[in-house]
């Protein structure tokens, strides 16, 4: 293929991916309420966001749930990655299979199956149910991320530690965890963005007492375009991009 054709094609795809986002970013700075015409530069919409206490509470909910679900998912996922890599036990392949299926499952199926679990347990929908649901969403991603990090590990260090009398907990705590730390942090950050970006699972598994940002955006968007929604979207995009860049940096670091 001709070089120019190739880069032209790739550029076209990047344009397709980024043009709508760029338009949102530009109009979040536009000093006009309704039209798409440019009426001058303003930070007004961002100031308004900041002063909208109701919206800020919702944003706070989102951050709390993202941080808690990410932490829980990281604990459980790292444990799962550890046993999958270091132990041979009955049902190991089945566990791999279940994690893979969990990762591939459509969000709506995860959402309603968990909703049914909560209904069966008579759990009222709110913080707890949302936390459980977001943990379920994130855990397989952490497990796979950390597991792939374990894959390149030198096994002789572990053998040496065992020969020197370390027990399994010490091996995990003193050798595995420090070596896997970048992947564990990366898993946490991925979970954080996954939770922050989720719409469908939150839609089914939280109640009116614990509204999160994507659901608020959803109801705002259904009412039409508003400049403060643009500003909010830009803020979320920046958080996602930052978390992602950090994740990539951590995963690239050599052991």
């Amino acid at each position, binding site marked *: 293929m001709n070089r120019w054709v*190739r880069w032209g*094609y*790739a550029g076209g795809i990047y344009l*397709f*991916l*980024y*043009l*709508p*986002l760029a*338009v*949102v970013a530009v*109009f979040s700075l536009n000093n006009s309420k309704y039209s*798409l015409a440019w009426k001058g530069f303003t930070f007004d919409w961002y100031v308004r966001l900041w002063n909208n206490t109701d919206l800020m509470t919702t944003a706070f909910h989102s951050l709390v749930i993202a941080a808690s679900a990410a932490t829980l998912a990281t604990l*459980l996922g790292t*444990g799962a990655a*550890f*046993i999958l890599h270091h*132990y041979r*036990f009955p049902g190991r392949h089945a*566990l791999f299979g*279940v994690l893979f*299926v969990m990762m*591939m499952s*459509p969000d*709506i*199926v995860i959402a*309603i*199956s*968990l*909703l*049914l*679990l909560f209904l069966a347990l008579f759990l009222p929908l709110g913080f707890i149910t949302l936390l*459980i649901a977001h943990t*379920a969403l994130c*855990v397989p991603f952490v497990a796979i991320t950390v597991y792939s990090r374990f894959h390149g590990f030198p096994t002789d260090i572990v053998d040496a530690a065992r020969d020197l009398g370390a*027990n*399994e*907990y010490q091996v*995990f705590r003193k050798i595995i965890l420090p070596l896997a730390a970048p992947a564990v942090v990366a898993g946490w950050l991925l979970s954080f963005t996954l939770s*922050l*970006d989720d*719409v*469908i699972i939150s*839609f*089914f598994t939280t109640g009116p007492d614990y509204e999160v940002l994507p659901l608020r*955006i*959803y109801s705002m*968007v*259904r009412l039409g*375009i508003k400049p403060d*929604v643009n500003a909010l*979207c830009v803020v*979320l*995009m920046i958080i*996602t991009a930052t*978390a*992602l*860049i950090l994740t*990539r940096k951590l995963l*690239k670091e050599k052991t």
Partner: protein
Amino acid sequence: MNESLFFRRLLIGTTWGWVCLLALIPYIILLGVSWLQPGTDTLVLPTITKENYRHLLSPEVFTITAESVLLAACTALLCLAVGYPFAAILANAPAKLQPPLLLLVMIPFWTNSLIRTYALIMLLKADGLINTALIRTGLLTEPLQLMYTPFAVFIGLVYTLLPFMILPLYAALKAVDPKLLEAGRDLGASWLQNFLKITIPLTMPGIIAGTMLVFLPALGMFYVSDILGGARTMLLGNYIRDQFLVFRNIPMGSAASITMTLAMGLLLLLYYLATRRSGGRVMR
């Protein structure tokens, strides 16, 4: 040694515990509820019935399912057709350029798809970017009706899901050993023969993984059809949501989502077969 055994059992036990709680038990409940009847006082009645599954095949629901499957299949096909050459360009780009280029695909991949759907409104609406541009250049006099059409939903799905196709394809293409293509060329194969006989079979797991990551969400992303498609129920996801939240017919909604799980099962089976096949070929 005792401590070690305890630690090991604790970890394995905990892991199986959450797997059961978060995945297996909810799924078994879902499967069970899909065979029950909806109640008026309680959410479900403990009577077993085939009615929900029979209703899935009724013209009303079957049309929705068939249209949604068709739309999702078209989305997956277009993403594959557009994404494969793109992933190939990325995989063959200079090694230094690849990480930043890949990052530019991953940012939309991780950005809230609701926000990305919303961003499309700016382009598609009557006084949006596309119509304005077409009118300014004189190609049109009247704005095109783009919003609230099935076409808008289609574009919305392709737009939000394209990165989910590109990333697995890129990973699969990176793993193709260039020596195999060289060997093909040395033995007199044309570019097309190399592509069809070596590249495509070896990247089949990536093709299927990408298709799965596009096709399944395309059945379920009800907010894309809500925001861009207007009032009509167009995706299986809208139907499931309405059964749960509007009609309070939880068993029917559960049965409808089993359709989706079956689709997933089928694609997973294909994936398994493809990895086994291509895995075997590389080894030999």
